[in-house]
């Protein structure tokens, strides 16, 4: 039997229910592990031991009273993009290094209400802009599978913490693959729900029409448990959808016989590592063996998704980040000469290079004379991409393919060329542009590094995706493997 720290939410939930352990014991164990080992990974920006133990005690008391739910007492880490009342919320930026949120994000509120225990706030790419977690003001995060490599981004701290067994689960956000790509790089299950499924209130905005909060867990079953508590209508978010939340855990074991799986031919382009392609074929064989029909489909405009994304996301981010002006919160430069100086130096020093590049890109594509050629054009190609997906879902129930073209790359390997870094997200960006749910699950290893298998559903088909992922995880044991150095 594995150690307490490497168990899944479902397993721990059972142990707590049976009285085999307590939330306080579990929380202490994990906090000690974080204290002892996180210096190697840098996965936390803030550890909140007092708050965690208080929440754990409250959870144990709740259990004693007999009103514990399945998540009560289970620890997790929140990506530092979610506002947490009374706790520093930095978004990985110097700009917010001194910022203590006066309110809780809806996601935080709901998971608190379910009784989950927050161990701390995880490291991330600055304002979620990055695919390697190298843009954080708090320094890069390392991949527990090979500390010379990146954990992926932007939810790099969240995946590193779960992969290193500092926590059984973490929240993440996914604007252009920021949950799925890092989950693929660290052998985890990462779910980005349908746009509108989970409230964005209290999640510091990067690109509002693409951002979506999701889960980082070891298994699909755990994702089902967590999503059930996070999802649902929130009247504080105009884009939140008022639609019933299914009991995702209840349908995990459904038979997949007759399910039609589409494999987009565009996923198998020249950028795809052939070993990753082989792993995808092996995963598809598992689905065939489960009775699924696997067919080829085409998403002819998929190759437009990265350039489309890199117009729309910067445009929205440039505007969203204007509120960081040194006036009401966050970093203000020393001794500003005048108002413009305060703006320019506070923002010039408070933001890192990648964030500034994206703000400038976004400013440019929205400016007079360029709006039509860039921004409006990208809104139209976005429509083409979304229409491709819609057409594919007329034929098939789910789409499947690789999450990333290659396994995790080395720190510093792609920092010099933004375009190569951006192209790493070629299979994930399109899902955000179309507002669809996407899931990455472990599908094997290449030279000791994990690779991820992506399942894409139609809008609000999370239950079916989790069902498919769970059945795969019943047939395989990739997801049970943990890195040698962090047993």
């Amino acid at each position, binding site marked *: 039997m594995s150690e307490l720290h490497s168990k899944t939410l479902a397993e721990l939930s059972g142990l707590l229910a049976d009285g085999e352990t307590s939330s306080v014991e579990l929380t202490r164990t994990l906090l000690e592990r974080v204290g002892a080992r996180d210096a190697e990974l840098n996965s936390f920006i803030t550890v909140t031991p007092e708050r965690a133990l208080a929440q754990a005690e409250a959870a144990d008391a709740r259990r004693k009273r007999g009103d514990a739910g399945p998540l009560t007492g289970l620890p997790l880490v929140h990506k530092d993009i*979610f506002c947490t009342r009374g706790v520093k919320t930095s*978004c990985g930026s110097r700009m917010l290094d001194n910022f203590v949120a006066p309110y809780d*994000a809806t996601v935080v509120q709901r998971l608190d209400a379910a009784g989950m225990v927050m161990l701390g706030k995880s490291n991330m790419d600055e304002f979620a802009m990055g695919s390697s977690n190298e843009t954080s003001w708090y320094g890069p995060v390392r991949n527990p599978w090979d500390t010379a490599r990146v954990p992926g981004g932007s939810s790099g701290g969240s995946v590193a913490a779960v992969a290193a067994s500092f926590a059984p689960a973490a929240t993440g956000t996914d604007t252009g693959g920021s949950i799925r790509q890092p989950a693929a790089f660290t052998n985890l299950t990462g779910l980005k729900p349908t746009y509108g499924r989970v409230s964005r*209130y209290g999640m510091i905005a990067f690109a509002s029409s693409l951002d979506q909060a999701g889960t980082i867990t070891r298994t699909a079953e755990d994702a089902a448990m967590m999503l059930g508590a996070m999802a649902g209508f929130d009247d504080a978010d105009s*884009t939140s959808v008022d639609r019933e939340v299914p009991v995702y855990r209840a349908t995990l074991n459904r038979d997949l016989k007759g399910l039609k799986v589409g494999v987009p031919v565009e996923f198998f382009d020249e950028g795809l590592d052939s070993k990753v392609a082989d792993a995808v074929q092996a995963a598809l064989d598992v689905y065939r063996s489960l009775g699924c029909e696997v067919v080829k489909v085409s998403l002819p405009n998929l190759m437009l998704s990265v350039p489309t994304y890199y117009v729309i996301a910067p445009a929205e981010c440039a505007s969203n980040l*204007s509120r960081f002006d040194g006036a*009401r919160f966050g970093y203000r430069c020393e001794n500003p000469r005048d108002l413009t100086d305060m703006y320019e130096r506070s923002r010039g020093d408070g933001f890192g290079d990648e964030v500034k590049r994206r703000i400038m890109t976004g400013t440019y594509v929205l400016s007079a004379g360029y709006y039509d050629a860039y921004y409006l054009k990208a809104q139209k190609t976005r429509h083409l991409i979304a229409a491709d997906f819609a057409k594919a879902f007329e034929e098939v129930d789910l789409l499947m393919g690789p999450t990333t073209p290659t396994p995790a790359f080395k720190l510093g390997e792609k920092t010099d060329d933004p375009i190569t870094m951006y192209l790493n997200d070629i299979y994930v960006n399109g899902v955000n542009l179309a507002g669809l749910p996407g899931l990455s699950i472990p599908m094997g290893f290449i030279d000791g590094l994990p690779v991820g298998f992506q399942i894409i559903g139609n809008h609000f088909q999370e239950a079916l995706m989790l069902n498919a992922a769970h059945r795969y995880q019943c047939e395989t044991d990739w997801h049970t493997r943990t890195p040698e150095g962090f047993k």
Partner: protein
Amino acid sequence: MEWETVIGLEIHAQLSTRSKIFSSAPTAYGAEPNSQANLVDLGYPGVLPVLNGEAVRMAVKLGLAIGATIAPRSVFARKNYFYPDLPKGYQISQFELPIVASGTLDIMLDDGSLKTVGVTRAHLEEDAGKSLHEDFQGMTGIDLNRAGTPLIEIVSEPDMRSAKEAVAYMKKMHSLVRYLEICDGNMQEGSFRCDANVSVRRAGEEKLGTRCEVKNLNSFRYIERAINYEVERQIELIESGGTVVQQTRLFDPDKGETRPLRSKEEANDYRYFPDPDLLPVLLDDAYIDGVRATLPELPDAKRARFVEEYGLSAYDATVLTATREMADYYEAVVKSAAGAEAKLVANWVMGELSGALNRDGIEVESSPVSAQMFGGLLARIADDTISGKIAKEVFEAMWAGEGDADAVIEKRGLRQITDTGAIDEIIDSVIAANPGQVEQYRSGKDKLFGFFVGQVMKETQGKANPGQVNELLKKKL
């Protein structure tokens, strides 16, 4: 050289909702700094806007009242610029797809004719906060209480040809938003203000001249003065060989002149784009019909009805319907002034009442003489209890709080003498006391008749019925 002035107005009216347009913070005026700014108004990280349905309803009301098209789909956009009173670094407004488009408003010109002014569009947006430039440790203080207050910006066509027309349009719109109860119209507090786009061109010229925008005019008087100054300035400039530069200007009411807002006009590039946090506002016919059903009688319809129903002149009807409160007051007086003609009521409301209101700076809705009391007074003229002259005295007493008309008449003994015998006696004594005047009158000096009337009225302290006095005097002389 003949010059033509071309004016377009952009009116900003604060909508009188309880909460802000995108947040639940209260909109009340004059609270402690930043005590009515919640996290959304402050532009805190992570917060999101949710649209106030009442603001939408009010915008639709205005659109219907000016015969405009209500957009089945309108879109909120972000207008990006940095300024300390703009917490998010962008203002949420409507750009390409406003909620209201293509309306009209009729204004009455000095000669009594009507002119139709086009309303290009009206769109919803959020107000900014306030910068306080008094010295705070050498810095500027920012109060964001007003940030997020709903505004409707009403953009006219460049249809006005004089400052007077611009003021007439502004007044008409002011009256309309108050009729509709969508704006309190308080100009001092900035609830209703405008920017004027002013240009001049030579008579007969088709092409518009270069315009200047005079910003933030918050009184009817300032609008007129600012436009007149601006027109003079532009004409003088052109006539002396210069050219008008397109710019934003401010009106200085102390000096009575306009001056450029910034010495160095920065190239503005607002980078409008659809706000990703807000979805398109889709309004169907059922919604629009529902709002239409709540519209009150509008000023133009009311004016027409006053002419028709009460037999008033167009002028009187216009004055009495200028505000909904005045019109309501008038109609309530008509109802309670049993026997008095509507025309008489109109004269009294526009005369004595308006005079007293102006003199004391009181709004009609807080008049110390209620419509019922006023009606009671006019009823006493109608039934010959008092004369019009005495009624003025009674009105003043009522205004001063001495009670209703009957009480004042009773207390002061002002009831008109209609007893023929009593008047006969007085006339006899007047004739007896003035033999010389009687003789002159009888020898043809007709003008002396007035003297006798005056004497009789004097004796009766004005309480004799003037008609009766005339009749009896003629007989006896």
